[in-house]
């Protein structure tokens, strides 16, 4: 997909995960992304460590490739002026400030659209830009709690658990990408930019769409089921010999029979307590205990080929290092080194979508703080003297 957004320039004063992930995807699609950071300290996520890699937070490294870093103090009028100058020649701006704070700095959509009517302006907020909670800060776990995701994640005899992956942050970044692509498509026809809005809360509600419809339909609020699902049994993790767990799914009676045969307990499939999915849902605990007696006899690695031969869907529950050791993951192009001046062991996770067999068009390593301030300002027409004066006044860094 190299080149799809070639020639598109993105001004990115966002920080943490959602905004940076959005602009990383735009960069992956070919756009030039100018990341604007606070002089001296930069994006908060640079400090989210341990763990770290080459002195930089791995959370930051995972969401900031394909960008140039420039340091500009947005609290100073001269810094606000730098952003306005950059916006004149830009196509997209993505920010994740509290609603109202860009406007207070003269950097709201209405002001910037006068300078550049083709600008696509994307505002990412915590709880939306209107309503009683608009000013409240939001972060991934807060929204996982607020939107109900935690209430359906984890085991019923333990407190609600968080989705270990930041599905609110990364999901919001992805929704923002979609809004921006939509607005760019429209601009190609009308010549006009527009204002895209996305929020962490709205993303949480969208993830919950299926559960919400269940409640709307008069059902009970869904509960935590650990690794299982409400309406199909067995469809969950089982203990095995050794450390590992295996996830086994038998979503219909035929597959359940095949599973019982593979586990060498064919009589269980004929047991009237278990011979239909509705019966298995009713006698969930008894059945799981019976099946687990068998799965404990071998390791997860030993069970996978046995169950696969029987046509039963299964997967070992893997940790991050095991995922990386899988040739399917590495050979498929999902894991890539960066080449060039990047540290040789620095590798990143590519996009999960291909166009004409290609993933991200280019992969520049996540930038050092302020590495591109001079070159970007020179490109915007600032003279060497002006750049030196702004640096002395700590407007840039």
């Amino acid at each position, binding site marked *: 997909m190299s080149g799809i957004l070639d020639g598109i320039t993105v001004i990115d004063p966002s920080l943490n995960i959602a905004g940076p992930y959005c602009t990383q995807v735009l960069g992956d699609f070919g756009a030039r992304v100018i990341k604007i950071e606070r002089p001296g300290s930069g994006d908060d996520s640079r400090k989210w460590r341990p763990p770290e890699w080459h002195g930089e937070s791995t959370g930051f490294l995972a969401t900031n490739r394909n960008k140039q870093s420039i340091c500009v103090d947005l609290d100073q009028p001269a810094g606000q002026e730098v952003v306005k100058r950059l916006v004149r020649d830009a196509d997209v701006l993505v920010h994740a400030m509290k609603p109202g704070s860009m406007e207070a700095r003269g950097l709201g959509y209405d002001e910037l659209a006068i300078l550049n009517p083709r600008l696509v302006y994307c505002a990412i907020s915590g709880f939306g830009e209107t309503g009683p909670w608009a000013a409240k800060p939001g972060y991934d776990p807060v929204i996982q709690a607020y939107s109900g995701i935690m209430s359906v994640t984890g085991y019923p005899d333990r407190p609600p658990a968080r989705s270990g992956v930041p599905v609110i942050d990364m999901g919001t970044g992805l929704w923002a990408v979609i809004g921006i692509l939509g607005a760019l498509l429209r601009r190609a026809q009308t010549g006009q930019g527009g204002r895209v809005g996305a929020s962490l809360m709205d993303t949480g509600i969208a993830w919950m769409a299926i559960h919400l419809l269940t409640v709307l339909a008069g059902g009970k609020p869904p509960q935590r089921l650990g690794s299982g699902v409400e309406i199909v049994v067995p469809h969950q993790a089982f203990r095995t010999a050794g450390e590992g767990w295996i*996830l086994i799914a038998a979503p219909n009676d035929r597959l359940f029979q095949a599973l019982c045969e593979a586990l060498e307990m064919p009589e269980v499939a004929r047991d009237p307590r278990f011979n239909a999915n509705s019966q298995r849902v009713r006698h969930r605990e008894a059945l799981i205990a019976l099946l687990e007696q068998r799965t404990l006899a071998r390791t997860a690695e030993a069970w996978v080929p046995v169950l696969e031969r029987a046509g039963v869907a299964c997967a070992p529950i893997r940790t991050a290092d095991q995922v990386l050791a899988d040739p399917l993951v590495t050979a498929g192009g999902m894991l890539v080194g960066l080449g060039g001046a990047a540290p040789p062991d620095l590798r*990143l996770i590519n996009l999960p979508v291909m166009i004409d067999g290609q993933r991200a068009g280019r992969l520049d390593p996540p930038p050092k703080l302020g590495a591109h301030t001079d070159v970007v300002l020179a490109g915007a027409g600032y003279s060497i003297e002006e750049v030196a004066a702004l640096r002395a006044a700590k407007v840039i860094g």
Partner: protein
Amino acid sequence: MPDILKGVTVLDLTQNIAGPFCAQLLGDFGAEVFKVERPGSGDDARKWTPPAWHGVGTAFLAVNRNKKSVGVDLNAPEGQEIIRRLAGKADVLVHSTRPGSLESRGLGYDHLKAANPGLVYCAISAFGESGPLARDPGYDPLIQAFTGIMSVTGHPDRPPARVGVSIIDMGTGLWAFSGVLAALYRRRETGQGGKVATSLMETGVNWMSIFLAHYMGAEHIGARMGDVTPMTSPYESFKTQDGAVLITAANDNLFTNVCRALGVPELAQDSRFNSNNQRVVNRPELHVLLEARTSRITSDECVALMRQAGAPCSTINTVDAVYRNEQVNAMGMIRPLAAPHLPDFKTVDLPVSIDGEKAFLREAPPALGTHTDEVLGRAGYSADEIVALRARKVVG
């Protein structure tokens, strides 16, 4: 947002969740979506009940608005011919059949692009279209297990847990949709369509980006931490008098606000806690100190105090509380969308707006085969031909 894809025609050969969600998004953005279903039975997800609403599975209803339903048997040669005719005039085709099975019916990308070079063809698979597992089936929980997501979800003293929402299925639908939008954007310059491909597995690996970076960079293998986020502190839930609240302080300022709200401002200066790095290292001590304060008040009192201090905090809501929540409703996320066969139907809107507008919610999820005659008629089939095809059960 309604007009962005106006005039774009989508042929949707998907079922279950991922593909239908992608096609629904195309419809939300204004495209006309023809959902092709097996005559008689239709999309498997129609029958995923309970829970049901007016007799239809709620999961189906969540991902099939803004579509027309057309019943065509893809195993019959005449049915394959109908798809070829529709694809000849379509802008986008989305399918989620196993790799190779559309090709064996003469409906692969190479077959269809000859007649329609502008076609954007999107293939959604479980494990990708090549490699040793290409033909294996995949389901959301399996891929959560396979890609390590379950290994970092749940509590350490329990087996790995599944994320309770379909982040693999719906996430894959989102990635497919962003690929289709990008390909349409490219097409406006080149006139050429292209092939978009994504899979459940690739989506899962990408969701794991940060954990994989932890491992590649620091050989740190993420573990289950219940409600805790590994690289920031405090970023977890705290017991209150009547339940628990989630508190996150992603930087030192927010941490100062949290300490002020809880009446322990001295903790913000304490050398064990005055930077995120220190707080992550000394998380257990900090947790006990903060919980000593939160456990004296109710969850609602805690949220109010934090809001006043500008610190991020939420109660841990159940689904029904989310549905009733005033901020959720202020943002217009849940809207009625009436249809004769689904009285009182409501649907969850898109979490992204353009110029303040969200999706254009035109049509509720269709009853099976509602639009077969209309769509075939527009593709040039005569009324007699349609009657004959219906009699042979090629369409329904």
